[in-house]
């Protein structure tokens, strides 16, 4: 089972190192981790994708909450939330026409953000399954490089967020 967890943490040096060290030393399997400052510069939000059964998830959540600089942990399982993954991908235009790529881009609501003689760079965001499908479609063209942010997520119902700080 894969779960999405969101942690509100203090925006201080070493917090990310502490959290990733704890996850590694307790042998939790983290598939992705994305971090960024919130609207309040005192806090950052970290989104994790964790795989494991309910017991593993329960431990991850509790061990995270034990870290003094972790303010709150929310488990998004069974909740109504929006999740996104952002990708930049460089695709070769050597072997096939650029228009084919452009067409697929439009279908997937991606954006060509850089063009050179031999390749294009595309920005695309969405759910992980969509990103993965797009990667598969780009393979025949020749993927030169790609980078992904890892998943970020937010609850639709903002009430749960309000009670924290």
């Amino acid at each position, binding site marked *: 089972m894969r779960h999405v967890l969101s942690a509100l*943490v*203090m925006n201080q*040096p*070493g917090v990310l*190192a*502490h959290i990733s*060290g*704890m996850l590694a*030393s307790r042998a939790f399997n983290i598939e992705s981790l994305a971090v960024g400052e919130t609207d309040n510069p005192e806090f950052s939000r970290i989104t994790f994708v964790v795989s494991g059964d309910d*017991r593993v998830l*329960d*431990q991850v959540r*509790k*061990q995270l*909450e*034990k*870290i*003094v*600089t*972790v*303010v*709150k942990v929310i488990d998004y399982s069974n909740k109504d939330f929006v999740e996104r993954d952002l990708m930049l991908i460089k695709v070769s235009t050597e072997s096939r026409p650029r228009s084919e790529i452009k067409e697929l881009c439009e279908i997937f609501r991606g954006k060509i953000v850089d063009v050179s003689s031999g390749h294009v760079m595309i920005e695309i965001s969405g759910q992980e399954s969509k990103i993965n499908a797009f990667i598969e479609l780009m393979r025949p063209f020749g993927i030169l490089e790609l980078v992904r942010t890892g998943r970020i997520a937010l609850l639709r119902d903002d009430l749960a967020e309000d009670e924290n*700080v």
Partner: protein
Amino acid sequence: MAKATTKKAEKPVKTEKQAQLNGADILVEALIRQGAKSMFAYPGGASMPLHQALVKRRDRIRTVLPRHEQGGGFAAQGVSRSSDEIGLCMATSGPGATNLVTAIADAKMDSVPMIAITGQVPQKVIGTDAFQETPIVEICRAVTKHHYLITANDWARTEDVTEALKSIPRIVKEAYHIAKTGRPGPVLIDFPKNIQIATLDEEIDWDPPMHLPGYKPEKRTVPPEQIRQILAAIRRSKKPILYVGGGVINANAAEELTKFALKTGIPVTMTVMGLGAFPGDHPQSLHMLGMHGTVYSNYAINEADLLLAFGVRFDDRVTGKLEEFAVHGKIVHVDIDPSELHKNKEAHIPITADVKDVLVALNRELGDDDIPQIDEWKAQVAAWKERYPLTYRDAGEWILPQYAIDELWKQTKDRDTYISVGVGQHQMWAAQFYKFAKPKRWLSSSGLGTMGFGLPAAMGVQLAHPDSLVVDIDGDGSMLMNIQEFATLHCEKLPVKILLLNNQHLGMVVQWEDRFMEGSRAHTYLGPIDHPEWLGKGDGNIAEETYPNFVTIAQGFGLQAKHVRKKSEFPAALAEMLASPEPYLLDVITPYQEHVLPMIPGGGTVRDIIVE
């Protein structure tokens, strides 16, 4: 104006001229204001200003110089484990700091509140591999409850330290709060030298508000329905057992636990960390459970239909094979740390709470109807106790370690005695044969299992309890690991007594070699390599000279010391040591052939228990 002046005069603290105070003064002053009475500190380049600040205040805080930073760390634990004070230790940067790491990790494993302070290289050179620089906060993240690095916020302008200086009282206040509340643990404060020597010209707020939005250890009130659930489970049970651990000691709940146990008649078994939570010589005590626990406690927990697991963590040394541990029992698990619930074993009634609050509520709500009808169970437990007592053989004139501890207990049970131990066979025998009547009298590195813990821990206890009898029961392997602290005992006038059970071997490993590796000796003999015992080919003669000569060593450090080899001479030799006003080492030569029994091999079940 006049009014304002009067007001100021009433609060001298607020008007204290701050100009003379540097960062080191502020830290030490803040510690004293939080209640610090003593500190174990070994100086060095990056912590000298702190020592200057300490020596200026020596009438308010006693600074003891250990002879190794690790010794200082364990001594600080000795203070914390035996009293309500929080032990403090300090070291310089680099090697001083890394030498503290084992003691910090040890405190984390056993939930011991402690504050460790390390000097650090000036902020400007942090990250440049400066002389004696180690990133101690990075190293210690996983083994502290929390950690601080005091720095100027702006790393481009490290000379601007005003805010850093003003933050020190808050950091110290938070460190105390975090160390002692919730599940206690060690806190590290890393303190760069440039901030230690910088002076503050502004007024300082000695009692600033804490800023810990992510730390909420406040006691949750125990919902009455959960108390009723526990009482219902007790009422229905036919074979209940109290399985109690260090959480009960930490929560200062031994008295409530004892009251509850006596009222309900439920037998009590304790983990190695829980010894002292219930009087060890009371008939209702099943004593320690687990790998080297009593047969009857392990039988009882295996048969029990209800486990009242209070302040325990279902450690592998207790449970053996998890899937088969206490399979018949419903589990009520109370712990202050929510991450312990369901971690190793699924609980039927999990409660995150201070175990003292739960026990107070249980004692209050417990009605006569709630007392379980368990006469049959009690008779069964008593029969097991009768059939498989904790015992040891008669070895003629040899002094068996079990006998030595038994005799120590007999000679000291009427005094307020504190016992610390190293790690190994002697530790388990002490746990088995010294019957602790009260909490916080037993100091053992139980979770981390650090050899060399006993002597420095005893130093800390003696400092916190100058008039009490403090005995370090040690093994010859463990003894050597912090033997330099003999100097601290002598120079700092700490009259610790050392009962050295000297069998010339690393006994616990020898025991495993004997049981599971056909007795093949692999670096477990502590004498010279040309001795036949080195290969396990000796004749077992223990009458010859031992190595090293601990008596000469102890005397060289200024301790009183004696050898004893004969059982007939032991009681008098022990009495002489216990009567001495000085630090004293009694080197007791014991046979290495003894095994700690009973024993459930690692990962085994109660069916695998070895009794002889």
